[in-house]
């Protein structure tokens, strides 16, 4: 028995080293079709690499934005700066509460925000979090938080990306990487915002669907709320505008609103401002720059009206 346990343990160690080494070379040289569970894209869409590089040197902020692509494409840091507010946008593509928690734990103390605005899009509560985990692992440092995230998401692609990313971090293989400010139609703006070249949306018929919450995403969401409460940082939840043709296809919007209202001060901008599906959006769920300006203006106005004390104290600074 003793021999079996010792042999098995040594084999597991041997096998792990073998796996790590082979994964590195396989990841480097194998054809994509032979690595279905290998996804490691540094500098992937949404400028996550640049954003997560900038956050490390950005310093303290007045407002921190969290959320999915609706956050980094929806909260224009320049508009807030023009209103006297230094902000940073930590949003990333398909970011679910699991990744938000990781990023918050990593950068909250560094940014020391006076207010957190968390963009909540119903779909993110029903995602498995794989896409965003891969994005965060590929474009940020990898530590114990990343490993915990991988366990939570529990997907082979995420485990492989974590191992590969860890090797890259260990040997500093990503140091020479440079991400251009302009990539395709996207332009990175200091503070984490990504401006999209103006484009318009032609509304299409979408299927009716229901907003569904995954238990583990809701649990991570609760943890985020707890963390912010513990640090006494005020939190505002914002449902950014999406085209009416999309919004009205959700059969249980009231249910979503009621859940969000339970957690913190919540504003559903689909019920607050009226935007034109064609003129203010570039696809079925993202605002174009015209829409962003209208949305941000209204948000600032509402913050002034509803959170006068917090807002004024932020602006005085």
């Amino acid at each position, binding site marked *: 028995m003793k021999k*079996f346990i010792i042999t098995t343990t040594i084999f597991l160690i041997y096998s792990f080293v*073998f796996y790590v080494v082979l994964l590195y070379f396989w990841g480097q040289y194998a054809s994509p079709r032979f690595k279905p569970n290998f996804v490691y894209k540094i500098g992937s869409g949404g400028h996550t690499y640049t954003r997560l590089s900038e956050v490390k040197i950005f310093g303290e902020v007045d407002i921190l934005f969290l959320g999915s692509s609706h956050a980094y494409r929806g909260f224009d840091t320049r508009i807030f700066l023009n209103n006297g507010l230094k902000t940073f946008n930590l949003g990333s593509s398909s970011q679910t509460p699991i990744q938000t928690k990781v990023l918050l734990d990593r950068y909250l103390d560094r940014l020391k925000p006076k207010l957190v605005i968390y963009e909540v899009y119903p779909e993110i509560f029903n995602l498995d979090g794989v896409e965003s985990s891969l994005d965060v692992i590929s474009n940020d440092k990898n530590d114990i938080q990343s490993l915990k995230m991988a366990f939570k998401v*529990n997907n082979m692609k995420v*485990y492989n990306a974590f191992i590969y990313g860890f090797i890259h971090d260990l040997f500093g293989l990503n140091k020479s990487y440079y991400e251009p400010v302009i990539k395709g139609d996207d332009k990175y703006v200091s503070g984490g915002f990504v401006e999209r070249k103006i484009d318009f949306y032609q509304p299409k018929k979408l299927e009716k669907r229901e907003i569904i919450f995954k238990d583990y995403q809701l649990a991570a969401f609760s943890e985020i709320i707890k963390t912010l409460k513990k640090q006494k940082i005020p939190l505002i939840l914002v449902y950014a505008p999406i085209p009416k043709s999309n919004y009205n296809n959700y059969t249980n919007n009231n249910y979503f609103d009621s859940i969000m209202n339970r957690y913190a001060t919540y504003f559903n901008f689909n019920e607050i401002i009226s935007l034109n599906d064609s003129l203010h959006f570039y696809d079925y769920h993202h605002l174009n720059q015209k829409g962003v300006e209208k949305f941000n203006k209204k948000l600032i106005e509402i913050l002034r009206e509803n959170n006068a004390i917090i807002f004024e104290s932020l602006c005085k600074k």
Partner: protein
Amino acid sequence: MLFNSIDFAIFLPIVFVVYWFVTSKNLKLQNLFIVAASYLFYGWWDWRFLSLIFFSTMVDYLVGLGLLKEENQIKRKILLLISVLVNLGFLGFFKYYNFFLENFIKVFSFLGTEIKANSLHIILPVGISFYTFQTMSYSIDVYKRKMEPTKDFIAFAAFVSFFPQLVAGPIERATNLLPQFYKKRAFDYSKAVQGMRQILWGLFKKIVIADNCAVYANLIFNQSASYSGSTLVLGALFFAFQIYGDFSGYSDIAIGTSRLFGFELMKNFNFPYFSRDIAEFWRRWHISLSTWFRDYLYIPLGGNRGGTLIKVRNTFIIFIVSGFWHGANWTFIVWGMLNALYFLPLLLTNKNRKNMEIVAKGKLLPGIKDLLFIFLTFIQVLFGWIFFRANNISHAISYISKILSHSLFTIPKFAGMDKALPIIILVIIFILIEWFGREGECAISRIVQNWYRPIRWSFYSFIIFLIGMFMPTVESPFIYFQF
């Protein structure tokens, strides 16, 4: 709990450690622990159905005790009937109730009488077809005085619920497995290592081969109307390797896991796709079920004895029942009948026991004749799998009709075909490993037996790597769970 899940990866080492380090000094305690672990394993899926296993265990245990005391033949028959009725009653209700109801409605409707009856939303308890057959074998063997009934309820409960083979077999005979619960198990290093090897190979078969083939088999079968005949052949091939990898993979994990706990289960698959005729195939495919039907149905019906008509009748009965055992659908019945038709010419010409040894024993490659017969047998099996996999009979017929059209001679084409290439390569490698390891108990054991440890370990590690690289990201249950 699935063998290919993180839950099981945590469960197995914990059970192993407690089993050997905490409970090993007391046999009763160790058996009790097996029962507890097995009930936890099963309850992980749905704890409500534990009551079925417990009830089935109680009935067969009490029937066994009754048979021990009873000498009156009529009363003994009644006791056996109770066991059979309870087990088949469970199976009939959970698995076949809706099938019979729907078919009765159709028959009466055909005869002009409309019957109003609602089908029930019945959840099929995982593994019910396996453990009911296993417990029934106990009652039948005790009735036939092939074995002494047990008085040890814990040992009997452990025999019925033994977690490695509880949900998808091998369907063990009480005469083989139950006595293993009576005696103290000693840890055997070489058996444990062999068990680990078999678990690894089983996981490869299930996760890399079966689950990836399933993606393309499902794609092609679900949209068969829009594909060419050649693509449909490819779809059937994917299914052939899906079902083999899935079920034999499960059996390997079950047998390997049992070895870690000092138990020997019967072999369930013996390289069936290298069979040279259909009789050999059925001696190598799902052996525990085939032999169960042989011993408890075919032989009691008269087996090969009697005239030609009796032989034909018995063959059809055993294959149709075997097909029906797989599921409440006409497709399985037709699949069974088809296999009976394949088998009968061999039986009637006394050629059904021609190929008893593994093909090309002691040789590297098969002869041309063997290769031809392997190919022809595989074609027969493949044809049968179309019925097995199709949603209904008309689906199977349209699938076959399309294969037999001129589009059979076109190049196969389906969405995502370029992604299937690595899977096809892996299947070819898998076939080669199975071929070179066919004389061993488990293919990889035979291949690596003379290798130096570093090479052997690198080979195992490479298999682990392939599992990590090709594992589908959605956990898929074993096909045979639905049976």
